[in-house]
């Protein structure tokens, strides 16, 4: 029983990470119908920037977190302006391949600059090293930090999307870009802002993972990226609460399969979930069916 709770707690921590990354995928897909392959690399950059911030700049956790998020925001917006904006009206395949190109570019440039090897985050000091015990259930402060920061960020995101003008603009552009433009919404700014938000969250996830798992490398984004993407699809691609639900679902499933089942199949289960969702209900848990008008 206690093992069950431990697994659930571990699953929630992992799920928080997936949720943060999944949000970026879902927001970008919602607004320009692009599967941003480069998103997982922004997550990786977040981890690396956090690393450099804590080792070279010797900043504490919170300043590093903010720095990561800031840099990732900038990088995300730059990528959109340089690589995706020129292809706003191109075919889906063209944008997809460009996204893949950007992803490869980030990965290999990082490898060239920082080396392909694994780096370890510096040891955490102070309150981050603690843990709480409830019977034989272990909850580390890391996990509490991850979950709390994730909740704070998600709540802020919901606030922005539901209660601000720019949030309304995001929703409008997702529904009908041309109509939004005709209504006087600055589509370019709105899209950039969407990328900014998603990238900030990914950056946060990156540094949180760096602290939690302690090791980072230039290709660390691939697997979590795909899983977060599956999470976004599961919850309903383009739907923000869906990404949150999806993230936690995938996180918990992964931990359970790993703990109770065969860890070799752990990754396979995630893909199986993807296929099942696409076959049974491609629009995801919270998605609506949309028809093509004939």
């Amino acid at each position: 029983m206690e093992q069950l709770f431990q697994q659930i707690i571990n699953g929630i921590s992992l799920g928080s990470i997936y949720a943060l990354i999944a949000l970026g995928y879902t927001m970008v897909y919602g607004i320009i119908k692009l599967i941003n392959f480069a998103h997982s690399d922004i997550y990786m950059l977040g981890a690396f920037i956090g690393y450099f911030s804590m080792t070279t700049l010797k900043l504490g956790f919170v300043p590093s977190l903010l720095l990561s998020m800031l840099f990732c925001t900038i990088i995300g917006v730059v990528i959109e302006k340089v690589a995706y904006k020129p292809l706003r009206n191109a075919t889906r395949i063209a944008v997809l391949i460009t996204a893949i190109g950007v992803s490869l570019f980030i990965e290999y440039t990082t490898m060239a600059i920082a080396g392909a090897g694994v780096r370890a985050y510096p040891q955490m000091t102070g309150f981050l090293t603690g843990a709480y015990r409830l019977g034989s259930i272990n909850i580390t402060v890391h996990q509490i930090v991850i979950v709390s920061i994730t909740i704070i960020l998600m709540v802020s995101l919901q606030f922005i999307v539901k209660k601000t003008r720019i949030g309304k603009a995001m929703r409008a552009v997702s529904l009908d870009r041309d109509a939004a433009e005709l209504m006087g919404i600055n589509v370019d700014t709105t899209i950039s802002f969407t990328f900014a938000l998603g990238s900030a969250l990914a950056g946060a996830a990156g540094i949180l993972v760096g602290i939690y798992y302690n090791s980072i490398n230039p290709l660390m984004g691939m697997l979590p990226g795909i899983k977060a993407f599956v999470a976004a699809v599961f919850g309903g691609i383009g739907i923000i609460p869906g990404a949150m639900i999806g993230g936690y679902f995938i996180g918990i499933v992964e931990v359970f399969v790993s703990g109770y089942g065969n860890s070799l199949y752990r990754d396979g289960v995630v893909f199986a979930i993807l296929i099942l969702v696409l076959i049974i209900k491609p629009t995801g848990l919270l998605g609506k069916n949309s028809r093509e008008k004939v």
Partner: protein
Amino acid sequence: MKELFKTNWIKTLVSLILTFVVIQLLISLNIINSYLQTTLATICINIILAVSLNLITGFTGQFSLGHAGFMSIGAYVCALITLKTPTIPGFIIGVLAGAFTAAVIGVLVGLPTLRLRGDYLAIATLGMAEIIRIILLNMDSITNGAAGLQDIPQFINWRWLFLYTAGTILIISNFIRSSHGRACISIREDEIASEAMGINSTRYKVTAFTIGAFFAGIAGALYASTFNFIDPKIFGFSKSIDILVIVVLGGLGSLSGSIIAAILLGIITTYLQAFANIQMILYSLLLIIIMIFRPQGLMGSKELSLSIFSKLGDSFKSKKGRV
């Protein structure tokens, strides 16, 4: 009409014989040394992969990101057969068995996923390919898992490569210029109109998918017989992307584009080996630049044909002659 067919046949035959003889010559004279022969093999294998993927994605409009999955099946089946029976008949059986197995898997994968559209289909195929890879990884007793299969007998020489590559191009090209091929193309153009004209779109999507998988299987078998070592990692998402890049660079819907792109990229990567470090960085930049400035690729959806020379001749005549 019959005259036209005859001259086309002769042109095709002549260019095939020329290509075979010239390259065989270069090999015998060691101008194409063993290092370049590997490049040649890679190019041929990539041509088969690109042409077969183009059938699925370029001509039928079904976005497939899992082509490497079919390749891996062909590779493993062939490898296992030739390891058991390292003879030429064994090799031939291996290639065919690999191709047919890949085709069967193609049907199994295609049936449930091909009713999805666009991006959803793309992700589904990606997921399927990953599942295939993970299964291969876990079937330790047969596939040797992550360690892969080694010392696979090498049967590949220019004759086999040429046979399989030319064969693939001819069969797929013939298919496209048939009514069945046109049915596939109509699905790309407008699936709803296509159905209204009496075409069973699901059946043809699966057909194109299966044919594509078959030839990907052949390519995989050839790969195993060339490089004498395979493991599941080789056939991952990266490989599927590599093939897709060749197809898009050459032009979706252009077979000659795929061939030219495969050759060009094969040559470029060989030369970029010297800059191993920044090779991938340059490659990814190349991708981005080409997509931004010429997303339709080299050939768009047109084919390279000898009629281009007669067209040039015509434009000269009209400039000189009339008003």
